[in-house]
């Protein structure tokens, strides 16, 4: 029993606290867009919820709406400092010459490709044929056609989730921490963010850059951002898009 408690304690101490992680991958020839480029931000997919005591996320409509608004404003702000021409889609409708169905289809296609990127670049199922080749995924001809129809150079896809500990969950966190005193540390996650951004070059159809953000906290009351507030949303946009790194070949040439 003593041994078990000790292991739990040390593991707990290591895992305690929390973290903010981002990991980006890029096409080997990717250079961050600069100067006179045009970017279309696709309708961001946002969900904010409350983390129940049992660990399920209960979506909250009001928080989600607020966060979506904040993220859209933060994006516009962040992009206005980049020099490019940016258009943000809040709905699927409203682009001249492109119907909502085409937008929906591109979103679904990106969803499938994005899941594949997540699986093979982030979740450890590395493909032997794609080792050390940077990001090598494409949305194909459909994206190129979409680019021609919209006259845009890039499309940015965004997905963001955030969750907050409910009072029951927070109580559980306190008990889990209190247990450390008697040798039973059971750190409990109090929710956090998980988001990704994906940049598609509409001239080639390729996914040229991808970034994943994750934050998690096991200390009750401690958070690493809150996209329900304008500052938190700006922070998430900055973490996701702030420091776009060039692809490997481009960096090596520099």
């Amino acid at each position: 029993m003593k041994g078990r408690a000790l292991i739990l304690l040390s593991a707990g101490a290591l895992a305690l606290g929390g973290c903010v992680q981002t990991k980006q991958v890029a096409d080997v020839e990717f250079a961050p867009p600069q100067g006179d480029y045009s970017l279309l931000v696709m309708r961001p997919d946002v969900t904010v919820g409350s983390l129940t005591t049992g660990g399920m996320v209960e979506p909250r409509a009001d928080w989600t709406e607020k966060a979506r608004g904040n993220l859209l404003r933060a994006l516009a702000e962040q992009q206005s400092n980049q020099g490019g021409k940016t258009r943000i889609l809040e709905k699927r409708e409203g682009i001249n010459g492109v119907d909502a169905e085409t937008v929906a289809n591109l979103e679904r296609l990106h969803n499938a490709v994005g899941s594949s990127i997540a699986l093979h670049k982030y979740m450890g199922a590395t493909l032997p044929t794609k080792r050390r080749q940077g990001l090598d995924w494409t949305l194909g001809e459909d994206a190129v056609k979409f680019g021609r129809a919209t006259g845009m150079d890039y499309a940015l896809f965004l997905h963001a989730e955030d969750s907050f500990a409910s009072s029951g969950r927070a109580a559980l966190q306190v008990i889990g921490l209190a247990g450390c005193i008697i040798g039973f540390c059971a750190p409990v996650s109090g929710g956090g963010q998980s988001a990704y951004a994906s940049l598609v070059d509409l001239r080639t159809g390729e996914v040229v850059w991808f970034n994943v953000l994750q934050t998690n906290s096991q200390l009750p009351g401690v958070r690493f951002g809150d996209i329900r507030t304008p500052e938190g949303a700006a922070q998430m946009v900055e973490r996701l898009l702030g420091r776009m790194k060039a692809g490997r070949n481009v960096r090596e040439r520099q």
Partner: protein
Amino acid sequence: MSVLDEQLPLTRRMLLGGLGCACCAGITGTAQARIRPADMKPLVAPGHRPDDKDEQGLWQQYERVEEEIAGSNLLVKDPALTSYLGGIAERTGGPAARDLRVYLARIPEFNAFMAPTGFMVVFSGLLLRMRDEAQLSGVIAHEAGHFLRRHQIRMWRDMKRKTAALTFLAMGAGVGGAATGVYAGDLVRLAHLGTILSLFSYSRELEAEADAMGLRQIAQAGYDPTAMPETWQQLIEETQASAAMRKKRWKRGYSLLATHPAPEQRMVDLRASAKEVTTARTAERARDRYLQAISAHRKDWLDDQVKLNDPGASLYLVRNLARDGWSGLLRYYEGEIWRLRGQKGDSALAGQSYAAAVTLADAPPEAWRAHGQQLIRDGRGEEGRAALQRYLSLAPNAPDAAMVRHSVGG
């Protein structure tokens, strides 16, 4: 393991055993009781909108889901059929009549589901199996019943409550166990199992509610309520037929980890309940109207079904539909099932079906092609070529017309 455990092993086992029994008793208790249609009152008013935060969040999620489904390329795009289905939902939807939406997806499977926001998705495989509008109304009313009884939000709240209790129990067992030196991991694991079983049990209870609610609704609309247990009888017989042809034992499908009550239980309960709601006004079957509504699609759906490589189920399905009279279409697909199974003797059986199909008025052109090819194989070239000519005259623009024309030497 802990000291206490070694000293008093029996006490702990007795405790765990006792708790286990309590769990199981609770579960079978709720699963066995039939819910009477008379006890089922709708829990929503017309134009129901969510008031509570949790339900609002659920709705927002499902509004996105509906947006995706509405644009899905799996949907059967037939406005007349869609509004026909919507009409049945309206007729059986009670207070939610005007709040229900029905989407029809081309998926060859017996299934349908209801979203908390009031839209349901019905699979084409379900429509294929229905013999008349009364049977279909039972399924649609069952789904509407989930909405009328607010099942999704009740399920979510039940899950929230039970997982919270379990989580605190586990934490308490961990912290308390560490403080007193007792290892309570087994107890936690048992409680975990108890929670899972209890969640599934609640899900089955809600399904039984939806059955009773749906039955009440179709009887009120004037449909024959015995159509509802028939659907389950058909499903059971189909499952048995499928297993029999594969030479497998029929899995009765009941388990403590099932989300739905066993089909047999549902059939028995629905039969008893149907008696309670039958009146002189509940006689409508509307078979012709139903067949008319799906007429443009039955062939596609039969085609999807026979390609599932489940000859036992397909054969049962076709013959069950033929209880209302054989048609050329059903005979042709009966032949296709034998042909695709392709075991010894099946070719002759297929030939008989094709030959029977072409004697019926509504035989599809493909029946003439299949019949002709079979005759040629049997050495009756002259007749076979005539049948193929008939195919070409019925379907001159078929994708394989040129090839068939070549084979008849024309």
